[in-house]
């Protein structure tokens, strides 16, 4: 099979995205690179990216797994909630 980027894979999923409010609040100025590295490696949706020496985060495409909460709550991840009623990913296969 041809390789597909995570973004392209996520484009196959059904999302009711809350464009305005993120259910995850991230400290983008967090300094500990070891902490950031874990999130870059673990997030299945690649919501956390390292671009030009800086952490970026987007909740668009979040699969709501909770990985980042468990790895870095109170550090990089300042707040982690479920998306509001009806928002977020809607698996059609699961």
């Amino acid at each position, binding site marked *: *099979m041809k*390789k*597909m980027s*995570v973004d392209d*894979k*996520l484009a*196959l*999923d059904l999302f*009711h995205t809350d464009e305005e409010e993120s259910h995850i609040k991230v400290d983008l100025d967090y300094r500990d690179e*070891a902490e950031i*590295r*874990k999130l*870059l*490696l*673990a*997030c*299945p*949706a*690649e919501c956390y990216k390292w671009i030009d020496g800086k952490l970026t985060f987007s909740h668009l495409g979040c*699969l*709501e*797994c*909770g*990985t980042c*909460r*468990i*790895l870095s*709550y109170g550090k990089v991840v300042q707040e982690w*909630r*479920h*998306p*509001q*009623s*009806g928002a*977020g*990913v*809607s*698996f*059609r*296969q*699961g």
Partner: protein
Amino acid sequence: MSDEKFDAIIVGGGLAGCSAAIVLARAGLEVLLIERGDYCGAKNMTGGRLYGHSLEKIIPGFAEEAPIERVVKREKVSLLTPDGGLDIGYSSGKLSAGPECASYTVLRAKFDQWMAEKAEEAGAEVAAGFLVDALLVEDGKVVGISAAGEEMYADVVILADGVNSLLAQQIGMKKELEPHQVAVGAKETIKLSEDVINQRFGLASGEGTAWLSAGDPTAGGFGGGFLYTNKDTISIGVVATLGDIGHSDVSVPQMLERFKSHPSIAPYLEGGEIIEYSGHLVPEEGIHMVPELVRDGVLVTGDAAGLCVNLGFTVRGMDFAVESGRLAAEAVIKAHELGDFSAAVLSSYQQALEYSFVMRDLKSFKGFPTLLSRRAIFECLPELCGEIADKIFTVDGAPSENIVLYIVDAIARRTSASELMKQITTVLEAF
């Protein structure tokens, strides 16, 4: 939704929640099942395989009607090296021979919706698309929920809100999960025709394969790869223990690509089309992570209670979820009869769970989380088996060495005698 008081509110329309709803509604209780996804199953994902025994107790013969994918008739376990692997396959008429021991591949979005329909048929009210923000607590007793700005009251609340049970954490029944207690799963559902799947896996119509592997896919990290055949799709994914993230520079999405392109796996996927990409956490620490199960007016079930066990060759959680949902419901029915929803009365749930296969199995396998956090299992063992298999199966005209001595040497090159003893002890303790 109405502002009446319910006999029971169940938070979460997965297998534990739906099972509890069916049992409660059948007993004539007024039940509200509340689910944050668009529909029950919308936020759920499995590898996956459902062992059917516990659901049989609630809906005998369910597989004839439920949207199961295939009946698992072939088991396969592989230790994968970068360019190959050692496979152990098992097929037998005894696998899934009857409903009591059958297992099925399932897709949760479809399966859980069917379960929710059963709950509705039994008389439960199912409200999907509502996130429960908080539990309502009065005088230390849970008395209801608040969702979408509305407060709803019940004699008892059953938490079936999954591995990230923020509600159980909110009231202090459960601690924040730690990285070594959970693994992240990333999965693709890949479309192929039913015939192609049958041919590639050597399956008769309706029969399925469950295939677990360790080694190369996670680049030696704790975790593994899985592949399950559905009717006309394949579920393929990797699981990586969060406590071991960073062992290598391979990310979870890269692990999945690495697994899919592995020479032992890739031919099975050829020509397939990805139709969904999903991620989810899996409780991994078994008995060691089970939280407080009962308090005044509240019970915790399923993944929210960490009821999962991973033995490497079998992975279970859904059958535990179903059983815990049923047992929680039965405890609530007793409490309803007595008109007493205190922790003391609801603790019949905890006792029933202790006597059931759920806690017994979690206790029997209490050493597995330790065993499956040994680097040797994921790094050295696949390599070692690969090397020995290479030796045994390669005939190139060079004079043969003594195989036993070769094996001893291959082990000695990787580990010391004392280290080996430790590994053996861990294995023995696990079983």
